[in-house]
């Protein structure tokens, strides 16, 4: 009996602590690489699941609901997506966003590449120019948006004063139906070209100088060596800049909210601004979630197309 009680007591401890199939397994797992890996991952994984992966899935669910946050949600099926079809503001916002993207991305690319080529000379003073040219990128968008409102003041603003010097009567930029979007684009190109410039400078620095010397020996003109040497070898940087700036311009919000608030009419209402208005001014969360998913689909399709184009246009080897 005593022996029985003794063995039962001995057995009780591992049994309540969920015994491993054979002893030492938990000990070995605790010392294993996989256990260490999950410990290292834990903080990031919890945050990622709660604040990124979870919300992405939740957006899909919310897009099927009719929900104003205050009363209980009701199931709307695909109604929110059907509404998109007959919502002219949504299509205007989509068109505006596409207009913004397809003009501002190539322009930013050209300005970034131009300034990078200009600074890529190994002259000692270039580091100063590089820092100064990066300044617009380092400023806060909301703050410089106010400066640009001031620059665009219709009659005697700086932009129109300069245009007046060469005899051009400038438009009333931000309140003009035709010129409000170009004005936003100009400001955005100014704000963001510095980032592309740094990427291109890094890319240019990686091109071996011998290739240029070889091209010169072969009698290539500067334009030819730019076409045949610089551009192909810079294509990975170009690709990276295009992909990131397309994704960025599909999300343009700050400058549009501050400088035009979407106007005049809905000429500069961007998709993100419309999502913000739907979700947080009209409290129509389901509809806003549906809009954000459509935005995601557009970004995904365009990014996918870029990756397809990359196979033909981007050269990763010398």
């Amino acid at each position, binding site marked *: 009996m005593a022996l029985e009680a003794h063995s039962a007591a001995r057995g009780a401890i591992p049994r309540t602590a969920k015994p491993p199939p054979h002893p030492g397994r938990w000990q070995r797992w605790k010392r294993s690489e996989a256990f260490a890996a999950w410990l290292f991952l834990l903080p990031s994984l919890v945050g990622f699941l709660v604040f990124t992966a979870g919300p992405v899935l939740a957006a899909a669910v919310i897009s099927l609901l009719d929900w104003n946050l205050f009363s209980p949600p009701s199931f709307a099926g695909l109604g929110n997506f059907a509404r998109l079809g007959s919502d002219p503001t949504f299509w205007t916002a989509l068109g505006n966003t596409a207009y913004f993207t397809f003009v501002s991305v190539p322009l930013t690319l050209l300005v970034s590449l131009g300034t990078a080529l200009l600074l890529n000379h190994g002259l000692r003073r270039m580091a100063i120019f590089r820092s100064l040219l990066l300044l617009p990128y380092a400023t806060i968008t909301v703050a410089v948006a106010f400066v*640009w409102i001031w620059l665009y003041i219709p009659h005697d603003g700086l932009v129109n004063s300069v245009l007046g010097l060469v005899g051009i009567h400038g438009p009333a930029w931000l309140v003009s139906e035709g010129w409000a979007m170009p004005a936003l684009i100009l400001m955005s190109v100014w704000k963001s070209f510095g980032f592309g410039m740094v990427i291109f400078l890094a890319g240019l620095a*990686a091109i071996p100088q011998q290739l240029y010397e070889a091209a010169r020996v072969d009698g290539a003109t500067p334009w030819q060596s730019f076409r045949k040497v610089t551009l192909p070898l810079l294509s990975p940087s170009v690709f990276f800049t295009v992909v990131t700036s397309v994704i960025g311009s599909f999300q343009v919000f700050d400058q549009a909210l501050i400088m035009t608030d979407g106007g005049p009419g809905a000429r500069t209402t961007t998709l993100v601004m419309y999502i913000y208005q739907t979700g947080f001014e009209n409290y129509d969360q389901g509809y806003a979630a549906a809009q954000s998913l459509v935005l995601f689909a557009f970004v995904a399709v365009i990014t996918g197309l870029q990756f397809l184009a990359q196979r033909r246009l981007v050269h990763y080897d010398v």
Partner: protein
Amino acid sequence: MTSDLARATGPASAHVAHPAWSALPGGARLSPPAARRLLLFACFLVTAVSLTPIVMMVLVAFQSDTESMSARPSFWPSHWHTENIGRAFDLVPLGRYLLNTVFFAGGTTLLETVTAALAAYAFARLRFRGRSALFGIYLATLMVPTQVTLIPQFILVAKAHGVDTWPGMILPHAFTALGVFLLRQFFLGIPRDYEEAARLDGANRWQAFTRVIVPLALPAIATLAVFKFIGQWNNLLWPLVVSNSDATRTVAVGLQVFQDTNGTQWNLLLMAATITTVPLIVLFFLTQRWFVRGITMSGLGGR
């Protein structure tokens, strides 16, 4: 004359590193000093144009009320009204907003760099089942625009009574796949031998991470931190949605309030904008060496 000729043909021409610019498009060659002068002039011109808005912001910030609002704006202040600095701080709680922004940007940056470094180490160095699948899921979310998560994140924070609180502001923006991805790329480039030598000397995995990997990866971690800090200092949408009082309002949102309450009092508005921008520019100048090096090292720049 002869020295010019010697410079044009001699080794000095190597100073103009980019041959595409050492000759004009028509094939006519410029002597290097002339080419260099032309180049410098072009650099000055481009820089001057791109800095004009920033310079104007500062100049108008110091103008008098009548000067900044007259129908014909003058550019150079006739008198430097330094008292505008104090007036901008009096009109809205700008000091409070700045402090809030430091909390918000600093908090998200700190959390992000620490958790991303830990996770990146696991993805780069440790083997476990499901590693590539999990990393794939992380990567996939890189393409999701922030607006998709905006609404669920807001609902989550609102349900947890987190609106207008620091955890509600900071936590949803403190974990991104981008940080994990960037640091993993960098960790992969650190030779395994360094870490194995430390392990042979008796270091456990945690010690190998903190004493070997982190010190070697400090430039990359700093780059991520600078990117993140600038990005969050700039963030308008999330604070606009989740903060609704001066207790957590950041400068990006605060400037909007400033405009609403003060109309177009340009000198004070642009003074507030200047004050908001200065810390970021200072930070940027102090860290831009890392920033540029980090872009080069992370392989974003080239092949």
